[in-house]
């Protein structure tokens, strides 16, 4: 039995449709302060000193352990450390359980620091945003990893923030091959208060924003995998008591007004960047992911899969 605050069906449908879950200010201030203290001071800019050198020294000094990929997440961090406390927060543990299931596996983590203009001027480098990309490499799975992005201090728009494009997570692309795309309608920038978490599906398109403020910006990322040896992996791990039985399909196309909120309504809500034809394929792929997470191979929303699975000619 679990007493964790699991995600409900509506939150899961939002994650399936848009590829992210944002929890604003959920990490206590004392924990944010402990984390920043453990990370240590970042050296000030020094003329002629390369930024990669500054970054490398910062990573070497920071109180983040080197952790072997593939170990259980609950063995990754020393008890009492800020990162151990972070993943043990009930709201975090509940979201992790809901999204990737029991006994999740630690993949990797990284301390992302984005430097303000003074560092780039000192090093002679250019201060630019990161190209939009999908992490890791081409990933054809239906199963997915989750990345937790932790913002231990407030982030203003001037500081850049993580940029991401909701709803891009089901596209199979090759890392930064999509770097050509500078701006996409509906893109979001993480402007947030301290202690905010962004859980993202491993496929979502994102990039670091350029920092035009006068201070460094810190974000810590942890990637976790579902455990293939767990009996239930990531299937039906959210609060399934909140699922509403689907007795029949909704009316489609010819409707006389807005339909009430539902999982179907969430899954069928397009993003501003959706192409008119492939937007429909996005719907199909969302339905397939919902089938996987609910272990219901007959589920459909607005008849999209029922229609193409009707093999009448056979």
């Amino acid at each position: 039995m679990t007493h964790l605050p699991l995600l409900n069906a509506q939150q899961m449908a939002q994650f399936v449709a848009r590829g992210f879950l944002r929890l604003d200010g959920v990490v206590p201030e004392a924990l944010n302060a402990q984390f920043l203290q453990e990370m240590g001071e970042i050296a000030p800019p020094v003329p002629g000193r390369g930024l990669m050198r500054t970054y490398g020294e910062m990573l070497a000094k920071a109180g983040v352990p080197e952790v072997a990929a593939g170990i259980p997440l609950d063995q990754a961090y020393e008890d009492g450390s800020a990162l151990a406390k972070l993943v043990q927060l009930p709201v975090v543990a509940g979201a992790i359980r809901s999204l990737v299931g029991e006994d999740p596996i630690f993949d990797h983590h990284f301390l992302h620091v984005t430097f303000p203009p003074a560092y780039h001027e000192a090093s002679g480098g250019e201060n630019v945003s990161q190209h939009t990309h999908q992490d890791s490499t081409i990933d054809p799975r239906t199963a997915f990893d989750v990345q937790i992005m932790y913002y231990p201090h407030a982030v203003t728009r001037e500081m850049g923030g993580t940029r991401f494009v909701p709803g891009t997570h089901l596209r199979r692309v090759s890392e930064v091959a999509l770097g050509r795309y500078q701006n996409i309608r509906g893109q979001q920038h993480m402007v947030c208060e301290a202690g905010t978490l962004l859980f993202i599906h491993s496929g979502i398109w994102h990039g670091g924003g350029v920092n035009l403020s006068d201070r460094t910006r810190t974000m810590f990322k942890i990637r976790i995998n579902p455990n293939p040896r767990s009996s239930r992996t990531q299937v039906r791990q959210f609060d399934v008591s909140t699922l509403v039985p689907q007795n029949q399909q909704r009316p489609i196309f010819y409707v006389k007004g807005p339909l009430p909120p539902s999982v179907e309504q969430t899954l069928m809500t397009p993003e501003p960047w959706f192409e008119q034809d492939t937007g429909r394929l996005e719907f199909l792929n969302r339905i397939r992911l919902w089938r996987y997470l609910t272990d219901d191979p007959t589920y459909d929303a607005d008849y999209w899969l029922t229609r193409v699975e009707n093999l009448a000619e056979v």
Partner: protein
Amino acid sequence: MQRQKILVLYTANSALDSPVIGWSVYDGTGQTRPMAGDQDEPPYRTGVDALKDGWRLIQAAQLLPHGRGEEFDLAYLKYEFFFEQLVEVQP
């Protein structure tokens, strides 16, 4: 002396007069430094609006048939149009 400015528009379907859903700018004059995430609203409503503003279309994405078994796969944005402007710069 001339330098090239490039505008890339991604549209909602293969028609140049369909809405813009993504965009990029590359400036060969060096006078501006466009970059990822620098603009949340598109510079033009449609590709035709870019033509009206003097951009010259130099490449359009092809329409390709869907391979059997890959009909539902999605990857990169599909409707990509490259435009250019030639800008006089001081040598």
